[in-house]
């Protein structure tokens, strides 16, 4: 074993930890375990999960993980050998509730707010606009940091087919809300008439009537109303996106990229790592989760396994010994394959700070398992 990185220590003092990576690599578990470690060192921590992680919530003693932060009872984690010097709150992202608050904050007046919240297009939005969930995740993060109630906020990121989506989402969302071209074209209909629509009117009306043929007048009307109602909020949204970007690129933030020792998530992790580096996001570490440990005995074959199994009362000791020997060979091959996978991942990245977490026999969704992952992340 090489020197082990204390990732929890390295992240102490940061206000934001973003945990990113491909789907299915255990981001949620790593996020919760990091948050637990930071809270154990005295910080007031909030962890925001994206997936409905019921057993994780149950492990933390939270019955109903939702948009509102829930405090984790220190007694629960104390039994697993972790003393919460600080505090740990957990919550699950509710994109809709977050978006509603964002609208309420930026709407120019009550009437505008009510109009947006009642608009059917708005109500469908979180499911339809590419990146809405990712945008709301960073928005929620910002809210929590801004509240001043936490020393550190750990953000699990939404599962995306491509983990890079997460970085592009806020910009895509602002671009969408901006919809400037559309407002110009819609001008004559919705009364934003000062913006020189005359010049665009000819082309615009043709596009509008074609759109109407496609969608029907009613749907187009609602879309128009929706886009128009965002008119007065664009500045607020775009300021917020800029603040979020500033926070995420500042020294207060660290990105942790999680992967498994398999080619597909590793390729995504490598691409994500490079992208973060290029775009100036501060990198914390690469975490390779569920790595198979090298079994004992080096390359030696079992000496007298069948005899020992006989002594232990096995029914078919020779057969069982043969099967166990095969299992050992397979476990060794898996461990070797994992080591190769990790080497081919970190080599081209120039040796990033690395933490490996061994594959556990069971999902680390019980509090003891979570504490074990925390200890791995501390290098202890």
């Amino acid at each position: 074993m090489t020197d082990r990185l204390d990732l929890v220590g390295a992240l102490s003092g940061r206000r934001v930890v973003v945990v990113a990576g491909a789907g299915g690599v255990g981001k949620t578990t790593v996020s919760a375990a990091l948050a637990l470690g930071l809270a154990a060192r005295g910080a007031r921590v909030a962890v925001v999960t994206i997936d409905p992680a019921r057993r994780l919530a149950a492990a933390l003693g939270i019955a109903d993980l939702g948009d509102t932060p829930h405090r984790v009872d220190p007694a629960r984690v104390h039994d697993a050998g972790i003393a919460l010097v600080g505090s740990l709150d957990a919550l699950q992202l509710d994109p809709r509730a977050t978006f509603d608050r964002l609208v309420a904050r930026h709407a120019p007046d009550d009437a505008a707010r009510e109009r947006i919240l009642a608009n059917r297009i708005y109500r469908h939005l979180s499911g339809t606009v590419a990146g809405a969930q990712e945008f709301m995740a960073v928005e929620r993060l910002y809210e929590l940091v801004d509240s001043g109630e936490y020393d550190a906020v750990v953000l699990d990121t939404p599962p995306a087919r491509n983990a890079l989506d997460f970085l592009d989402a806020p910009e895509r969302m602002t671009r969408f809300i901006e919809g400037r071209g559309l407002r110009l074209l819609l001008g004559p209909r919705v009364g934003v008439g000062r913006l020189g629509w005359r010049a665009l009117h000819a082309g615009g009306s043709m596009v509008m009537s074609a759109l109407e043929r496609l969608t029907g007048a009613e749907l187009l009307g609602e879309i128009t109303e929706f886009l128009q109602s965002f008119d007065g909020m664009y500045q607020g949204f775009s300021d917020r996106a800029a603040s979020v970007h500033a926070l995420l690129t500042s020294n207060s933030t660290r990105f942790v990229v999680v992967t498994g020792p398999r080619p597909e998530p590793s390729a995504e992790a490598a691409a994500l790592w490079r992208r973060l580096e290029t775009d100036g996001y501060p990198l914390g570490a690469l975490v390779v989760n569920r790595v198979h440990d090298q079994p004992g005995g080096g390359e030696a074959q079992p000496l007298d396994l069948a005899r020992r199994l006989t002594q232990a009362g096995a029914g078919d000791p020779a057969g069982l010994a043969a099967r166990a020997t095969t299992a050992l060979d397979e476990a060794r091959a898996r461990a070797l394959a994992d080591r190769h996978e990790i080497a081919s991942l970190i080599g081209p990245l120039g040796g990033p700070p690395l933490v490996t977490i061994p594959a556990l026999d069971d999902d680390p969704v019980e509090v003891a398992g979570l504490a074990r992952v925390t200890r791995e992340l501390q290098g202890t």
Partner: protein
Amino acid sequence: MASPPLLARRLAFVLGKGGVGKTTVTAALALGLADAGHRTLLIEVGSEQRSSALFTTTPSLGGEPAQVRPGLFSLSIDVERSIEEYLAAQLKVRPLVELMVRSRAFHAVAQAAPGLAELVTLGKIWDLATLVRGDTPVWDRLVVDCPATGHGIALLDVAGRIGELSGSGPIRDQAQKIEQVIHHPAATGIVVVAQPEELAVSEALEAIDTLRSRDLPVAAAVMNSVAPSAFTSGDEPALAAVAADASADAASRAAAGAALASLRRSEHDAAETMALAGGSGVPVATLPLVPQLSPGSGGLELLVAALVVDPAIRGAA
């Protein structure tokens, strides 16, 4: 059950959380259908063509279906391009289509219009499913690799959501036409893929609930990457004794330990599979964890062999 087994339905949609092996299951299902003599089209939604890593050929994006195996073709649907095709078919006036495609207004509306992208994608799939040459359908079977769960459900349920927005026009008409086919359990089957892991199982259960509540025909679930084990609980006491025996050589202890780990893993996987079957009430097929999936490794063929004989997929004998 009155509905036919998945293998007998013309149109299969494969859905699941990211990372559970949805693309692999889609490829295995499509290959199994092709091997059984059905002319099969594997459809990927989105710009990434993950299945090409499982076959030796690289299908061309948005173009014509590319043959990847005998009887098996693959096609990737690009949403932007499909929207343009749809526009061209609806509006019929070429310069107008070009004007629309160039217009930012159109792109903003296309993004905001609930489900336009999904509807157009589904429309494209529907066109392929109903494509005939002479009197015979061009494709006997179509297998669709859906986007990850949330977006996948949005894709399948788009016709219903369009229905919620009252109004008229070609979009609404097409939605109604498509809805009838998608919701028809004789023609269409949805397969939800999970892995033996808490999050994946709970997400699969939620997805199945949601699909059912919207009357979408869930045909089966697939538990992917189930660790095979050569051990039974009867082996456990002797293995545990040797694993803990300090006088034994390290390799013997490690062998007993590896055997125990394999046993625990398979018990864990079996419990997750039970949770999926019990919680969903749909037939669950299991696929073994295969170490290698690259072309020529035989991994995909192993999965095909396991999938096509599974009663959850082929129906009870």
